[in-house]
């Protein structure tokens, strides 16, 4: 049973990969959009969900990844362009984080907001690297000498990277550094009291989260084949923050569920809108539904989709006449009335 559970995630990935090969272009496009968004959300979730640092610079960090990957890819670096993008974003994330080491909570959030705007500005004026407002054209990613084109191939590659990022983070959170992050999230003073080097722990979080975000940014670059400043504005940061909050901060399923929600919802509304022929209002309606759903969601389930999913699973399993649940109910001690844990 335990081995089956361990294998569940890789099997799920493999099935999705194979399935996306059989999908049409649109289906594959949806798969890689969600997968890439989920990589970014995993990176942000490490920083915000596990280490407790809210960041609004995620959009700009994705941009750094896309621009770096674009330049390196155009120079013929192949797969190393993705690694280079990760390193560049990790360094940028560190550069944002280092001065902010003294800052806590809200102040760190505002520092990242400042970083987002400064980076957005740099994207526009550093013309030799970013090609300014007109944007940087990116050649297809070359893998083993062959260009990766077509949504199906991109979907498989994105899913592979997503699996790699997920497995890495799973491993990281089992190490001492990962555990230290969780304590820093709960209370920095307590962490210090336990002998944890808070600054070093945060630096790990900045660098790792930045690297994963850079990989996601590189994939954004290679799928859209164009990096322009408008694609990496604050609204992208807000989307990413929305993903981990709607999905459920600091959970493993959260980034996946949140990415699917935030990416697929506008698509679904767009499709519905086209069916009803209200194209003119579409853009407004899409945003309106997005805003409204975020609000309603957090109002009724502030812990996000993953908590909702857990409740749903529990509800379904309570309906099924399963031996496991019945054993559990017999074994568990009935709590006395007025139990504070109720």
């Amino acid at each position: 049973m335990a081995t089956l559970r361990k294998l569940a995630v890789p099997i799920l990935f493999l099935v999705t990969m194979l399935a996306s090969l059989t999908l049409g272009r649109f289906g594959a496009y949806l798969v890689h959009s969600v997968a890439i968004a989920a990589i970014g959300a995993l990176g942000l979730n490490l920083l915000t969900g596990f280490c407790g640092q809210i960041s609004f610079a995620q959009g700009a960090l994705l941009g750094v990844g896309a621009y770096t990957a674009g330049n390196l890819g155009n120079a013929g670096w192949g797969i190393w362009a993705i690694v280079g993008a990760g390193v560049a974003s990790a360094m940028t994330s560190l550069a944002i984080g280092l001065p902010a080491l003294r800052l806590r909570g809200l102040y760190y959030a505002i520092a990242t907001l400042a970083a987002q705007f400064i980076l957005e500005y740099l994207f526009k004026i550093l013309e030799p690297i970013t090609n300014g407002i007109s944007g940087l054209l990116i050649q297809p990613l070359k893998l083993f000498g062959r260009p990766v084109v077509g949504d199906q191939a991109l979907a498989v590659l994105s899913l592979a990277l997503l699996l790699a990022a997920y497995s890495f983070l799973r491993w990281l959170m089992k190490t001492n550094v990962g555990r230290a992050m969780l304590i820093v999230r709960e209370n920095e003073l307590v962490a210090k009291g336990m002998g944890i080097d808070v600054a070093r722990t945060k630096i790990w979080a900045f660098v790792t989260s930045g690297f994963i975000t850079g990989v996601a940014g590189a994939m954004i670059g290679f799928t859209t084949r164009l990096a322009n400043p408008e694609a990496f504005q604050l609204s992208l940061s807000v989307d990413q923050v929305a993903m981990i909050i709607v999905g459920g901060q600091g959970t493993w399923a959260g980034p996946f569920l949140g990415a699917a929600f935030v990416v697929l919802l506008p698509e679904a509304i767009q499709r519905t809108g086209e069916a009803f022929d209200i194209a003119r209002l579409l853009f407004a309606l899409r945003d309106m539904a997005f805003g409204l759903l975020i609000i309603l969601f957090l109002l009724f389930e502030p812990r996000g989709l993953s908590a909702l999913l857990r409740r749903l699973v529990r509800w379904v399993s309570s309906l099924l006449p399963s031996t496991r649940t019945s054993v559990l109910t017999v074994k568990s001690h009935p709590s006395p009335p007025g139990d504070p844990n109720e």
Partner: protein
Amino acid sequence: MTFYLQIVTAGLATGSVYALIALGIVLIYKCSGVVNFAQGGYAMLGAYVTYALTRLGLSPILALVASVAVMAVTGAATEFLLLRRMLKAPVVAVMMVTLGLLILFKAFCLAIWGPDQIAFPQLFPVGSVEMGGILVTYNYIAAAALSLLLSVGFLAFYRYTPMGLMQRCAADNGRAALAIGIHVSNQVSVAWAMSSALAGLGGSLLATLNSLSLGLSSIGLVAFPVIVLGGLNSLMGSLVAGLLLGVLEAVTDGVLTPALETYLRSHTAIYSVGALQQVVPYLLVGLMLMVRPQGIFGERGTERV
């Protein structure tokens, strides 16, 4: 000299509006610990409501007053319908709700009034007066005077009235306020109402200075540097920092950018530095957070384990 004076005057006028809008954010933060990312959305909504009311035939000043009232009700309703239900939710979730509100407001205005810039009705008489050798339009005078008057009036209200005292109590220590019989949630409602009213007025004033568009909602983002510079929990600080940033923006736009561009063009391949005035506040924020994170007027908080 007159050129610089002209720039500084314009900066002071916009700066006083920034202060007005930032004041609202600080007010809500003080009494509920929530950072309202939707403040720019309220400013934009207020400006559109003023515009809509003048289109219905109200006189401009009456429309302005009515729109401020509408915004106060909207703010109180936001607190009552949304935030009151989220008292136990994590602060991040509440902040995300305000971000959702911002998206919602923008989409709402886009659906009704469209994406184009709209010429805002004249709220104040057309014309200008000469002051110290420079021409200042009535628009600028009215915006600056109204904002400063309201900000100061608001600070006085906060300092000297019984309601202001209750506000300060709720802000200082919510539990203690509850214990002495102050309805803290209602005080937070009042704070939201006032904050939105200030934002709505600020939005309308900014629309008279520039024009009306969805871009007004980004004014909330300018307000963040203001509150960091002034100190997150200082009302006075946001007033001073607002004026400071307004002037800084105007000076960057009018003096620094041209000078920098001439230098860069003659020495490097860079032709333009773009909208430098939009980044300068954030550069200043970065510097401030490194040197004195609590802001000019803020108090450093202590923490208990």
